[in-house]
């Protein structure tokens, strides 16, 4: 597991990607107006969540329709720490990944025995059932009302150095370091021996077992790591204003999967492209539809229709996704 440390070139490559990513986001983000800066913050949050799908489904072959539930675990952990103990978000968000990791370990232990449609179904029911816990324990989780949290205001040293950012801009700056760290870790994992072990489980469990891989244990590791990514995304997602059952619906899990598939389910770059498509698609469609005289009934459902059509077309025509083409070399 610790072979990454022995292999400085992997760390260097990941670091290079991360720095490039951070600079690019900062450069692009500073040219945007507030609305698009908030959208870009959502892209970064989703990106972390989509990375969990990439690791789980794309790299190790375990389909999950329930990453939204793990996002809810992360969100509630952060919100409870921040509202009940008034802990700063810079501590509460990293702490939330512990909660998500524990939930992921439990899920992984159950999921290691399941495969294919059984796993898809179980995770789907989890996505549906977990948010209802909020209504079961009203006194702690406050039911449908939820727990209001936000990113607050920048500290004085920040405003002294960089001037007063708008709220949307500050949202982006809070999310960016977490997204960069997530990217760094995901990139490391994919390039390292661990990533290759997970790919071997995806390609053939029995063959992997014959080369000495304990696939049940590795599946649990995959679930823990993926849950940590999802929990982090969920914590940041809640910081947009509210942590409640309505913030983490089943549709959120499906959005993450859609983004991962559209971009390319096996690559980090694909995860980012897919996220950008999913987040900005409604805006782009509105822009195009503005030229036509359409009733509200039609234009309300257009984004859903087009993104679903894109999903089907991607799967049927090019299942490797936008970024997938060059990564897939035939080895048969």
């Amino acid at each position, binding site marked *: 597991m610790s072979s990454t440390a022995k292999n400085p070139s992997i760390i260097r490559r990941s670091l290079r990607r991360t720095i490039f990513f951070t600079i690019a986001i900062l450069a692009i983000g500073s040219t945007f107006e507030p609305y698009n800066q908030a959208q870009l913050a959502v892209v970064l949050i989703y990106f972390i969540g989509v990375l969990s799908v990439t690791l789980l489904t794309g790299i190790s072959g375990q389909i999950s329709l329930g990453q939204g539930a793990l996002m809810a675990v992360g969100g509630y952990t952060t919100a409870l720490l921040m509202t009940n103990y008034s802990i700063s978000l810079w501590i509460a968000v990293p702490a939330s990944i512990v909660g998500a990791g524990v939930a992921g370990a439990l899920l992984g232990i159950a999921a290691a025995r399941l495969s294919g449609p*059984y796993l898809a179904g179980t995770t789907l029911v989890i996505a549906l059932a977990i948010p209802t816990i909020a209504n079961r324990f009203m006194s702690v989780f406050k039911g449908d009302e939820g727990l209001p949290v936000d990113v607050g205001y920048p500290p004085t040293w920040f405003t002294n150095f960089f001037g007063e950012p708008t709220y949307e801009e500050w949202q982006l700056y809070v999310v960016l370091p977490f997204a960069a760290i997530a990217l760094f870790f995901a990139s490391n994992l994919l390039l390292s021996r661990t990533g290759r072990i997970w790919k071997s489980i995806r390609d053939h469990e029995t063959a992997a077992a014959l080369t000495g891989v304990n696939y049940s244990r590795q599946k649990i590791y995959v679930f823990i790591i993926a849950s940590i990514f999802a929990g982090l995304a969920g914590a940041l997602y809640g910081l947009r204003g509210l942590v409640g059952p309505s913030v983490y619906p089943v549709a959120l899990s499906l959005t993450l999967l859609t983004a991962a598939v559209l971009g390319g389910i096996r690559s980090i770059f694909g995860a980012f492209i897919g996220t950008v498509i999913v987040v900005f698609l409604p805006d782009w469609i509105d822009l195009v539809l503005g030229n036509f005289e359409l009733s509200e009934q039609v234009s309300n459902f257009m984004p859903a229709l087009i993104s679903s059509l894109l999903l089907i077309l991607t799967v049927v025509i090019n299942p490797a996704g936008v970024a997938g083409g060059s990564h897939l070399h035939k080895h048969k």
Partner: protein
Amino acid sequence: MDTFLAALFSGTSRGAIYALVALGLVIVWRGAGVVNFAQMGQAMFSTYIASTLIQNGNSYWVGFFVALFAGAALGALLDILVMRPLSNKKKTELLSSESMRAAIPVIASLGILGVLQALAGIIWAAEERGFPAPAAQEGFTVAGSVMPFTSFDVFVISIVLVTLTMTTIFFKKTGVGLAMRATALNQEVARLSGIRTNFTRTLSWAISGAASSLAGLLITPTSNLSPNTLDLVLIIGFTAAVVGGLNSPAGAVLGGFILGLVISFVTFYLSPEDVFLSILAVLLIVLIVKPRGILGGKDSRRV
């Protein structure tokens, strides 16, 4: 005792519909190797067609049979347009592993669900509408108290039982049914022995489409019809299929009734808020004890 009987009756009636949904899922899983998450989207679509026909002055039964036919046609169409091209992609590297072969069609069916729900929103708007029942919906009176069991429930249970019997006979006694079972068992061998596997796959999509349309027609009188109403029914039906064993039609029926009763008893004795957690509990307990479901057979691995 009254609560117990009430829970039993309403659980049986709901369970019959969940059994039908689960059966539809099992037929496509066995016949085409796909878990069809779009199934209740198809049912929603054909129920809307029936509802439109009935609102325009046609009789209930015209709407009923047109919906069944539309469900079958839509199922066949989806197989031909989406799933058949997808299954021809098995040679590509992404789909060379078993895990991805199971995952990719699931994603495609989620895309189909999204398209159907958006189209329904565009065509029929998103507002909820009621759907008529062909029989009275007042409860029978047993020993002085009104039971939540109506003539409509009797209609539901009998029509579901007839459908289940017909499906069993179809699979066991007819040549086409035999061909479909052979395709499910091993597609290559079935094709080598002269079975047109593309045809049997499409046929299983059509049968499943009709079965789920029937489920849609039977469940919407007690809920309401909107593009998303049947999502929950799908999740419950899917859980039923997994609990019973995805490979086993009998298991699907058993799972449907188990789920119906569990949901009903939890609703009556605990609270409706606990329903999803109890479904999750049932699912996890069954899958930990028997990962392939109650009647799903042995979990075998082959190199």
